[in-house]
C-alpha cells in the first residue's frame, strides 16, 4: 500500500474526544481490520463527518495516511441502523457488540469474515430480529472464528463421546466435559442436552437456520450465561457494557 489515500468500508466501534473538536475513531474496516483514525472537526455541528462517524455507523470512508494515525477525509454512511438507535435496549446491545469486537481484535489485521458477521448481526438487530438470539449467535461465531471454538462433540478432557444427558461445560477446558471429568472440575458448570444441541447446530448453520430453533426462556438464559462466562474467561475481564445491558433488562422486567 503505497498510495497516500485509501478507501474502505467500516463500522465505527469506538470514539474518543481528541483535542477540541476532533475525534479519535476506532474503525472495524472490511479491508484492513481494526484501524484507528482521526476525524477532524467531527464534533462541530456543521461537520460533514459528524453523523457518518458516530458509533455503530456503517460507512464508506476515505482515509489519508498520517504519520501516526490516519485521517478520515470523507465519510458517507451506508447504513446508520436507525432502528437500533431508536431503542435503548438495542443500542445497549450495540455498545456491547462494539466492545466485544474491540476486545477480540488486534489493529491492522484484516478479517473480512468477522466484518461480515458483525455487519449481518447489526442488520438482523435493526431488522426486528430477536436481539438476544442475534447476540448469542454472534458470540458463539465470534469465539469460533477467533480460534476459541468450543469442543461440543466429545469431552474436552478425555475425548469420550458425550452421552445425551446433562453434561458439563468449562471455558477453561475449552468446551463440554463428560460427567466423570466435569463433576470434579470446580470451574465447570452443567450444560443441558438442549443447550448443547443448539450450540452444535449454530456452529455450523447460518443465521436464518439458527432462527428456526425454538428457545425457551430457560434455554435462552442458559446459553447466555455459558457464552458470557466463556467470553469473560477468555478476556479475563467483564465487558463494561454488560452491566448496563443487564440493568436495563431488569428495570424493564420490574416495570412490566
Amino acid at each position, binding site marked *: 500500500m503505497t498510495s497516500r489515500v485509501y478507501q474502505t468500508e467500516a463500522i465505527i466501534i469506538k470514539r474518543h474526544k481528541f483535542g477540541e473538536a476532533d475525534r479519535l475513531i476506532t474503525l472495524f474496516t472490511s479491508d484492513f481490520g481494526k484501524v484507528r483514525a482521526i476525524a477532524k472537526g467531527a464534533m462541530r455541528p456543521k461537520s460533514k463527518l459528524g453523523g457518518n462517524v458516530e458509533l455503530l455507523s456503517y460507512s464508506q470512508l476515505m482515509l489519508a495516511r498520517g504519520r501516526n494515525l490516519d485521517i478520515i477525509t470523507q465519510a458517507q454512511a451506508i447504513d446508520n441502523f436507525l432502528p437500533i438507535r431508536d431503542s435503548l435496549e438495542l443500542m445497549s446491545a*450495540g455498545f456491547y457488540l462494539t466492545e466485544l469486537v474491540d476486545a477480540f481484535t488486534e489493529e491492522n489485521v484484516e478479517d473480512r469474515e468477522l466484518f461480515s458477521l458483525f455487519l449481518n448481526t447489526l442488520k438482523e438487530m435493526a431488522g426486528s430480529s430477536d436481539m438476544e438470539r442475534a447476540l448469542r449467535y454472534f458470540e458463539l461465531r465470534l469465539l469460533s472464528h477467533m480460534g476459541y471454538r468450543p469442543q461440543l462433540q466429545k469431552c474436552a478432557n478425555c475425548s469420550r463421546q458425550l452421552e445425551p444427558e446433562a453434561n458439563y461445560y468449562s471455558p477453561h477446558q475449552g468446551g463440554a466435559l463428560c460427567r466423570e471429568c466435569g463433576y470434579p472440575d470446580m470451574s465447570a458448570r452443567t450444560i443441558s442436552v438442549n443447550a448443547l444441541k443448539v450450540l452444535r447446530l449454530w456452529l455450523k448453520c447460518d443465521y436464518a437456520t439458527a432462527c428456526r430453533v425454538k428457545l425457551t426462556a430457560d434455554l435462552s438464559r442458559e446459553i447466555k450465561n455459558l457464552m458470557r462466562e466463556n467470553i469473560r474467561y477468555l478476556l479475563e475481564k467483564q465487558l463494561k457494557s454488560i452491566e448496563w445491558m443487564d440493568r436495563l433488562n431488569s428495570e424493564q422486567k420490574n416495570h412490566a
Partner: protein
Amino acid sequence: MNSYFLPAAKPISRLIEELHKLPGIGPKTAQRLAYHLLQAPPEKSRDLADAILGIKENLRLCSVCLNITDSDPCGICSDETRDGMKICVVEEPIDIMPLERTRKFRGLYHVLHGVISPSDGIKPEDLRIKELLDRLGSNSVTEVILATNPNVEGEATSMYIQRLITPLGIRVTRLARGLPFGGDLEYADDVTLSRALEGRQEM
C-alpha cells in the same frame, strides 16, 4: 521542564508551558500570549491571575439546578421572571450558555454533569438524575426538555431519563435534531436528514 521551551528565561518558559496545557493553545500561541502578557501593564496580569483564581475560590454548584454559580441558588434559578414549570436538561454547565444565547428559553435548567456511557462504565447513578427526579417530585413542573447532545451517549441518556419521567405524567420533549443553519444538504448525514424529515414543520 520541557526542553522545547528552554531558550526563554525561566519565568517565561514556565508561563508558556502552563498556557500550552490549555485546550486549543498550541506552542506558538502559548509563546505569543506569554510575550503579550510580559509587555502588558502589571495590573492587567493581576486581573487575569485574580480571575483565574476566582473561579476556583468562589464557585460551587447551585443547589437547585447544579449549574456552576457564585450565589446559591444561581442567577437563573432565583430569577422570578423565569418559568419554573419547564426544565431543560443539559449534559454540562457549558451547554447552558448557547441555549441562553438563543433567548428562546425562559424556563429553568438541570445539569446532569455527564452522560451515560456504557463503554466507559458511566452509569445513571454517576449523573445527577436523582436530583432531577427529586425536583420533579416536589415542584409543579409540566415539561422536561431533554437537551443532551445528539450522539449515541446523549440519545441513550435522554431515552433513559424519558423512561423514568413518563410514568410521572410530565410531558417530556427532546430538542429537535435537524439541519444546522448555514449548512448544506449535500453534507448532511442520513440520521440527521431522517430526523429532519420526521420533524418537518408547516410553513
